[in-house]
Structures are given as C-alpha cells and as structure tokens.
C-alpha cells in the first residue's frame, strides 16, 4: 500500500512538471523530453505520463495494465501492433544503512556482466515521491588504495559494495529527504551532442525509440491510415516471464493478449558498431528476424523503407523476449531495431539519421498500402 501511495505521489509530481509541455513537437525535442524522464522496469509511470502529455490532442489512450499505454489508428480490420518499450535498465534502493547510505539492487537481471560496475564513483539520481534526490556512488580514494583493495573494490566492484551517498548522516535523515525502498536509481539525464549528428546519454536508445513512436503518431494525425494500427509503449519489457523454456517479456506478452495483433513490429534497440562494425550505426534501422526468409510483413517493411528512401540493415537472430510472444504462426512479427553504439552503458550513442529513418519507415508502413 505504502509503495502504491509512493508511486501515485511520484506520478503526480511528474504530471505537475510536464503539464505545460503538451502539444506537437519535433522528433529531436520529443527525444530530449523523454530522455529527461527516468524509467526503469516497474517504474515506468513517469515516462508513460510524459508520453500521454506529448500525444496529439484528441488521441484516445488504451491501457494493458502495469503501465503499458497505446493509441489506436483506425483503418481496415487488423490490427497491426507496433510495440516499443517504456523501461530501461536501472537500479533501485534496496536498503538504507544506519549511517544514511543507500544500498542498491536491480529489478531485473543486468543486460551484461559489467552493467553494475559502471556505477563506481558516479553521480546518480534517486526518484522519490518528494522529487529527485541527488547522490553519488561511493568509491575508494586513490591515495588510500592497497593492491588488495584495488582488486576487490575497484576491479571487483559489484552491488555488494555499492553505497549511494546522498549527504545524509542517518537512516532517519535519508528518509526525511523522501528516500524509500524501491525508489528507482538512475544516472543523471545528461544529453551530449557529438559530432556527426549523434547524441549520447544513459538509456538514450529506448527513449529515442519511444520518442520515434510519438513522432510517428504526430506525423499521421489527420492523415489516412491503411490498416488499423495500435502504437504501444509497453512497460516491463526487461522482465521475463518465469517457467520452462524461452522467457517472453511480460509487457510484450500482455500486449499480445490485449490487442491480439495479426502482425507485429517490435521497435527495439540493438548493439551496433562492435567488432566488425555490423550492424553499422548510421546504416539505418536493423530488420531482425529469427529466420532469414521472406514474409508478407518483411516485404511490407522493406517496401515502406524503399518508399521512404530510408536505409535498412538485416540481421538474423533468435527472437528477443519482446518478439517471442508474437512468434507463433499465423501471426507475423519482425523487429525493427535502432542501432545503438555502446548499448547498455551510461553513454549510449544514437545516430539521429537512424532514428529519423526508423520514423520514416513506420510512417510509410502505416499509411494506405504500406502494410501490404
């Protein structure tokens, strides 16, 4: 109950601060606005509220529970589902020590083994019901390091020794600042513009993809639509369903149950620019399929890309947890992924022309004739 109240208060705070931002905005400004909102698995309500505020006037929002939201565009019977994610990877407060330091845990397993190690000695933000609280993750002073402590506390840094310092001296003082267990902990939303029209920042990939869907919706407002299409932003996409075998993402599985799509495009992110470079950042969105074979949906996406003059890259890879719930014939699913350099680090890099191409392809796909 207390947690629900906390979340409600946090949502109210988010709504209050975004009340003035509603209205049509371009892709870059939408991306910047979504980027500024923390969103981790189980704590997507602020980002969902922000998206609602940015939707075109008159858009009717549908929900699938847990925070998932969607907007339906009318057309011939479908629907086609275009599904993005609301949640990024992050941490949460798991305890408060008597000295006022916060301990950390994750709501979901990390995307890779070094994910937690990036926290060492970094500023973080705790999103509390009373508003954001700034903190830093403690690190040893270099002057005081012994070889043994360098091995265990620096090279071997893990959540076991991650303490967030918020400047409090006691648990009581920390709680008085508004900090409670389960509050999300994320890196400060510092967006950096690099050369080559690239942007960098924490959790930028998923926010950019979510912004892309908002932008597509905005662009299609008042225009004819081919097939009935549901554009959705799913919560809890990093959380896999329990049980034997493959683990579909909870948020995606619920979206399937809710909207029963005939065909689905998962809008996701993909690590790019590694090793041999493929997929290439700047080379266009990546069309990912479990099998390298043609399908009506794939042909339609390719045709939409060609019509939009947008580049596409192709990759065959096992279905992601997002795609898994939609992978049973006769339903069709493909993933259209935004290439992200340094994915799942504090500095994810997105090439703006990839994001623009993603939007162009989706916009063309939704328009009359696009989904055929």
């Amino acid at each position: 109950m207390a947690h629900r109240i906390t979340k409600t208060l946090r949502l109210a705070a988010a709504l209050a601060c975004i009340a003035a931002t509603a209205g049509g905005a371009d892709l870059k400004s939408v991306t910047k606005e979504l980027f500024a909102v923390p969103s981790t698995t189980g704590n997507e309500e602020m980002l969902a509220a922000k998206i609602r505020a940015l939707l075109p006037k008159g858009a009717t929002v549908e929900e699938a529970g847990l925070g998932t939201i969607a907007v339906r565009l009318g057309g011939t019977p479908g629907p086609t589902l275009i599904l993005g994610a609301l949640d990024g990877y992050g941490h949460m407060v798991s305890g408060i020590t008597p000295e006022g330091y916060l301990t950390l845990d994750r709501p979901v397993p990390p995307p890779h083994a070094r994910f937690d190690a990036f926290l060492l000695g970094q500023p973080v933000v705790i999103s509390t019901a009373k508003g954001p609280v700034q903190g830093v993750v403690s690190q040893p002073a270099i002057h005081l390091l012994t070889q043994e402590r360098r091995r265990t506390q620096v090279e071997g840094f893990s959540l076991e020794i991650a303490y967030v310092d918020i400047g409090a001296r006691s648990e009581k003082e920390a709680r008085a600042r508004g900090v409670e267990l389960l509050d999300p902990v994320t890196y400060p939303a510092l967006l950096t513009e690099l050369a080559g029209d690239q942007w960098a920042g924490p959790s930028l990939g998923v926010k950019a993809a979510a912004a892309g869907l908002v932008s597509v919706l905005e662009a299609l407002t008042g225009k004819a639509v081919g097939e009935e299409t549901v554009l959705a932003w799913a919560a809890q996409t990093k959380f896999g369903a329990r049980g034997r075998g493959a683990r579909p993402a909870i948020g995606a599985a619920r979206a399937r149950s809710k909207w029963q799509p005939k065909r689905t495009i998962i809008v996701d992110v993909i690590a790019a620019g590694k090793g041999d470079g493929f997929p290439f950042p700047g080379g266009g969105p990546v069309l990912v399929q479990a099998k390298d074979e043609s399908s009506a949906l794939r042909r339609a996406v390719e045709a939409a890309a060609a019509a939009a003059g947008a580049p596409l890259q192709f990759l065959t890879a096992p279905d992601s947890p997002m795609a898994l719930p939609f992978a049973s014939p006769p339903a069709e699913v493909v993933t259209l992924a935004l290439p992200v350099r340094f994915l799942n680090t504090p500095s994810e890099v997105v090439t703006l022309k990839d994001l623009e191409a993603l939007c162009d392809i989706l916009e063309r796909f939704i328009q009359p004739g696009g989904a055929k």
Partner: protein
Amino acid sequence: MTKRIGIGILALLISVSSAGAQSKAWDILREIVLVPGVSGHEGPVSTFIQGRLPAGLKAEHDGLANVWFTIGSGRPHILFVAHSDELGWTIDRITPEGRVRVKPGGGILPQTIEARLVLIHTSRGDVAGIVSPRPGYDERPTEGETQETTFTAESFDIYLGVATEAEVRALGVAEGDTITAKKTITDFAPGLMATRAVDDRAGCAALLDAALRLRPETIKGRTITFAWDVQEETGLFGASELAKTLKPDYVFAIDTFVSTDSPLESKRFGFLPVGKGAVVRAVDSSNVTPKPEILKVMAIAKKRLIPIQVGNSRGGNDGSVFLAGGAIDIPLSWPGSYAHSLIEKIDRRDLEALTNLILAVVSDWK
C-alpha cells in the same frame, strides 16, 4: 534564547574580525571548479584568479602560470599556496579510425571514466567525446577464456562521433590537447556538493576569498604571500619553481585532506568527518607538521571560534618543497571524501572555516 543569540553574534564578530566581508568562497568554488586546467595547462585557471584579485594587489606571474602576490614587509614571511592544476589527460595520437588515444597517467581510477563523457579542450573550443568501454564489455567470456579486467589510460580510446583521422582533425582536435572528465555538480543539499576538481580548486577558492577579504592593517610588520601554483599533481613542479625565489619561514599549503569519511574506507586513520570544520594535516605522505605549530593553529582557531580538526592521512602537499629551504610546512585543509574522483565531496561550512582560518593566521601568526 537571548543568551544564545548573543553568543552567536559574538562568535560571528570574533571569526570575521580579521576579515573584510562575508565569505564568497562557496560561490567562487562553484565557478572555478568548472574551469579546465590540466597540469601544465593551467592558463584558464590562472586567468580566472588574476581576474578576480582585488585591484590594489600587484599580482605577479611566471612562465609556468604560477600566480602570486606579496603584501607587507618584515619577518616572518608566511606563504599560503594552493594548486590550480587538475587531473586529466593529454592526447597522444589520433588513430586512422578516428579515435583519440591518450598518454599514460591521469590520476583518476580509469574504471570510473569507462563509457563516460569527456571534453577535449582544443584551440577552437571544447569537443565532446566518450571513453570507449572496453572491447567485449557486454559479452560473457567463452569457456576457457578469461575476460580482460584491466582498463588503463594506455588501453582506452575516445570516440568523438567520427570515423577517420581527418574528421577528428577537422574538429580542431590535435595531439597535446588536454582532456578532462565532463564535470557535473551533485548538490546533496544546500552547502554540500560533489564534483570533479574540488582538489584543489577548493584551496584556490579559499585563498582567493581570503585575498578578497584581507585587511592589510592586520598584517603588522610581517610579509604575507598568497600563491596559486601549477603542476602539483604531476610532481610539485610549480611549487619547486616558486621555491627558487620565495624563501618563506612558514608555508601553509591549502589542499585536500584525504578523509576516510566514506563507507568504503577503513576508519583506522584519516577519519575527519565532512562538515565538522577545517583541518590541520598533521602527517601526510610529504610532511610531518611540528606539534608546536599544530597547537598554535589550534589556539588561533579556538580564539576565533573556528571549527577545526587534526588528522593524518595520505597524499603530498606543495609546502613540502620549501622544507629544504628552511620553511616549516603546515598544511591546512578541508575534509574531502572520494579524493581524486569525479565525485569529490565538500561541505560549505568546512570551506568557510578554512577561509576564516587563513585570515586568522594572517592576522595572528607570530
């Protein structure tokens, strides 16, 4: 209640009686901490300091960008010195793939800048980059393969968003340019923050604030020098240059006390809490302060009602290079958690206590 207010007013009067105005050290710190000045490239910091010194003071400077002024005459000659340089890197080379490689060193745990933003300070302005995460950072090692665990300045490169050497050069980036971590200020609460380069911009700010509040009539037959020197982090080079011409009797080096007020440190030594006052560094890696001098500082602080702590820790200080010339080195500090990091922590009360202590020493030191 009336008695308590009376004591408060008395304390305020005593603590500022050697000073000309209210401390602005905190505001100065929040500005100067953002000015880039990697060791050997402190020009912008020196310019900042010279631009804010009182007009009546005749500042001197040398080819290294050391800045100082001397006021008064007679003995003893008392030198206060803070260092203006900060930790960072310089560009070693630019690869054909458009990545920037840096020279070894830096003084910061490299793990804390992995996949982090940095700024390259070029002749045409700042260029943003990202320290590339180690190759395979997101892959699990295959069986029989050990994942590389070391991440050093020699091994990392910086990504600028371009793919060729020519594109990097077109941004104005060149070998020898300096690099600093992108600085952000974490405000825990009013008067309590963490950021990069508090070491030793807090010392610079304290000294500058003291210079601005200095009342010449308090000097009385002694010589006082305030100096902001360079290249401390790379070997006390700026102080060594100053020591060729300045022959003080006492040196008060103003620099970080590496406090163990942190959840990851042993409290066996160095546990001087943040927020509990200025610090006398009794013993560090470069100097043992004579006990009578420590007691003199403590007595002055007590008389002026300035909160003060004494402790021993690690790290060197610029005052130590004057020891051979006959000076006594008495380092003054603030308790700093997370030294040499992106999150060096400081409390406004400690900084203002330090500034008040500097002014009290100027006035009362015999």
